[in-house]
């Protein structure tokens, strides 16, 4: 299984452990990732707020490059990148005029032959739960995980075309396949407010607090995420939340791929576990 791989800006620095753990999991699962050479930023989340044409042209460049690589599927682990790539592909297919404008801007043509794939979808449907279960060497028995999907994994449904929009379970299925327990909770698809995190931090903290409170009340040991923006927002500001609301959650926020990698037998360094801010080792201690 060969896929073009688009890490995106976050996975180069603040979410390095997402990149490491995705690559590790893919190796175990037999998924070949070929990085798009010299890829550029997709423009999320600012291009679409300021120029529609720019918001399509930036990710379209990556789609054109994917075609040039001779590949027809591209994986973008960051959900913001994923959405922008999908929107670009779909809008160019629907609107011929827009496609022409984008091609003028890029000075190259796009055939429209690329499928933009969600990484959870690839693990669930291309690799399959059966193979994932077979690949597990260290099941995460006894670990209680709150799977957090955030906004864009399932929304808007006509773009995401993935899972149940209000009560998704794909990540829960994956976590159970590697031996973990998943908790039922009400904040799976609530927004963490990350786009306010830098510019209006206080507002973001209100939203982040609710998500962490929900996970704690459901009895979770840790939260699993599939988006670098959710991860950094939930992980990095727990001290600030404690200072503002008087509750220190100490809740580890891990990428689903870090947990999967560990279950497949990868070392903690392979999946970048040391890079997470809230120390996950105590809850993973028994594993």
């Amino acid at each position, binding site marked *: 299984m060969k896929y073009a791989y688009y890490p995106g800006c976050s996975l180069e620095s*603040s979410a*390095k452990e997402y990149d490491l753990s995705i690559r590790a999991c893919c190796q175990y699962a037999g998924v070949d990732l070929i990085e798009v050479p*010299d890829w550029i930023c997709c*423009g999320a989340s*600012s291009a679409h*707020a300021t120029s*529609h044409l720019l918001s399509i042209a930036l990710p379209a460049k990556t789609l054109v490059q994917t075609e040039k690589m001779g590949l027809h599927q591209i994986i973008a682990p960051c959900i913001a990148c994923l959405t922008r790539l999908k929107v670009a592909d779909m809008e160019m297919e629907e609107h011929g005029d827009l496609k022409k404008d984008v091609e003028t801007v890029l*000075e190259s043509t796009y055939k429209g032959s690329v499928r933009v794939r969600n990484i959870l979808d690839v693990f669930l449907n291309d690799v399959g739960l059966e193979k994932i279960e077979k690949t597990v060497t260290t099941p995460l028995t006894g670990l209680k995980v709150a799977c957090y999907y955030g906004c864009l994994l399932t929304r*808007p449904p006509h773009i995401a075309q993935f899972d149940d929009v209000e009560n998704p379970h794909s990540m829960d299925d994956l976590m159970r396949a590697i031996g973990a327990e998943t908790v039922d909770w009400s904040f799976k698809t609530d*927004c963490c407010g990350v786009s306010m995190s830098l510019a209006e931090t206080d507002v973001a903290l209100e939203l982040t607090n609710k998500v962490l409170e929900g996970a704690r009340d459901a009895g979770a040991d840790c939260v699993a995420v599939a988006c670098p923006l959710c991860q950094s927002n939930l992980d990095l500001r727990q001290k600030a939340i404690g200072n503002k609301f008087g509750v220190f959650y100490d809740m580890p926020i891990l990428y689903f791929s870090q947990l999967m990698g560990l279950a497949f037998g990868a070392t903690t360094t392979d999946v970048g576990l040391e890079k997470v801010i809230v120390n996950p080792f105590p809850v993973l201690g028994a594993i």
Partner: protein
Amino acid sequence: MRNKLEEAKNIMKVAVKEDTTAFAKEIQRKCGQDVLTCYQCRKCTMGCPMAFRMETKVNELMRAIQLGLRDEVLSADTMWWCVSCETCATRCPQGIEIVEVMDVLRETAIKEDYYIPVESIEAFHKVFLRSVEAYGRLYEMGFAMDLNLMLKDPLKDADLGPVMMAKGKLKLRPHKVKDLKSVKKLFENVRKLEESRV
């Protein structure tokens, strides 16, 4: 009776004197979304995680668009607090992709120099895109520092820097893409094409 009827007719004349749907049609032309179909069920506002911060709620904004209150809508705070979480659009019984409407409003307000009530968010977008245009990729640390300077709060989140640095989560230098020329060309071409259409 006759007078009453005349009176009613005059009121109607005032109400329909100008085409109040022009603004809604402008939005529809720009993004394909028909705001005129909104019937004020308020599901958008009920599910909105940012409603607590908005002076004009999402459903109120939709109504103002229907009434053709162009200036009021383009200087509202709603779209600047919107985090594009897509909850409203997902739940709208009329299938209005409200976030696309928000994008059109943001883009139009910037292009027409409307007053933007949440200054920091405008700064965020500017600094973000400046970084992408300069390097081809977002240089996270530079972006955060530039934003803080623009917000006149240079030490904001200064406590997080060393924490992230210790975890190897911050790059000290930007990663410039090799083909930076084509990135600059892309941005220039977008500007040229957009200016030619004004």
